[in-house]
């Protein structure tokens, strides 16, 4: 099972600043292991951030996003104590959802 993300969300002026760190290898499919075999591609393809049932960010990623991805952005309309959910789905169909309370 995928390891948990670290999600933070904090009020910043009239916006909520969201920061997410995701635990993922983001394998390109072009590297080889120490036996010289190709390591299959394995990377996050889809990231969705929701707030009170509304999608505040929807992203698609390719193999060029760095391992253990970091994402930071801001949206309007959030308030302290509310929940922000971050979810990803990767190229093998694995997924993970974590959340943070807005501070």
């Amino acid at each position, binding site marked *: 099972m995928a*390891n*948990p*993300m*670290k999600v933070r969300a904090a009020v910043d002026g009239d916006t909520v600043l969201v*920061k997410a*760190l995701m*635990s993922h*290898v983001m394998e390109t499919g072009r590297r080889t292991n120490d036996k010289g075999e190709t390591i299959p591609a394995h990377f996050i393809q889809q990231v969705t951030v929701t707030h009170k049932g509304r999608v505040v960010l929807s992203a698609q990623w390719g193999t060029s996003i*760095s*391992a*253990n991805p*970091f994402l*930071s952005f801001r949206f309007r309309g959030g308030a302290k104590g509310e929940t922000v959910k971050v979810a990803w789905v990767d190229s093998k169909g694995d997924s993970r959802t974590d959340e943070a309370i807005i501070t």
Partner: protein
Amino acid sequence: MTWRMRGLAAVAVLAAASAVSIVAAATDAEDHAADEIRKYRQMLEDGNPAELMEMKGEALWREARGPTGASLEACDLGLGPGVVAGAYAQLPRFFADTGRVQDTESRLISCMVALQGFTPVEATRDWYRPGSDLEALVTYVATQSKGMPIRVPVSHPEEARLLAAGGELFFRRSGPLDFSCATCHSQDQRRIRLQDLPNFLNPADARASMVTWPAYRVSQSAVWTMERRLIDCVRQMRWPEPAFGSEAIVALQVWLQHQGEGGELQSPGIKR
């Protein structure tokens, strides 16, 4: 440095003299590169993936594991059973129960063996693989010393012995490239390619460096503990691989931490 001038071929003296004129021209380009690298490092500071390892390590610390089904919460890291806060800042240190000076890695392994019933082989398996349990545990333990000054004890005879040995090892040259730690780390303001090299003979530099470990290395997609860092330095010197947890690696850490004494830990760091 008078000895340097003696016995030199005349050409060498000429070569050294003409080198001076080149320095100024190289400086502008070097300054610009240094500014951009600083910007690169600043942009990395927010969102250190080592925090993921800290989370994993904390969970591992509390989880009942191994043949005895115990957690590590009774582990004595030097400040008493279960005391994690501040422990990393005072490691390596001598432990009476094992009769050895131990670093964070080797002490955690002792606890995994004594408390959880793992064999030493099980406890160290794949320790160097990115995301290993040991990497996570060390990251967790180290971050619990954040803001605390490095202060390794050197009063026990064994600690004093390793401190002296570490200082000697730092200068020990061998192998096909004649390297020692001192080759790269005994002068101020040096770089290898664009990577700044701490001068461990200079306490200010030693502090600035030692407080940033363990660190997420973006080139490796993994947190490197000090053992990992040092064992890889030895590999880069083209020496054979030293044994994990060996006295040599612990001795170097005693010496390095001692050089960096007083530095306030910022663990985990993030680096190239």
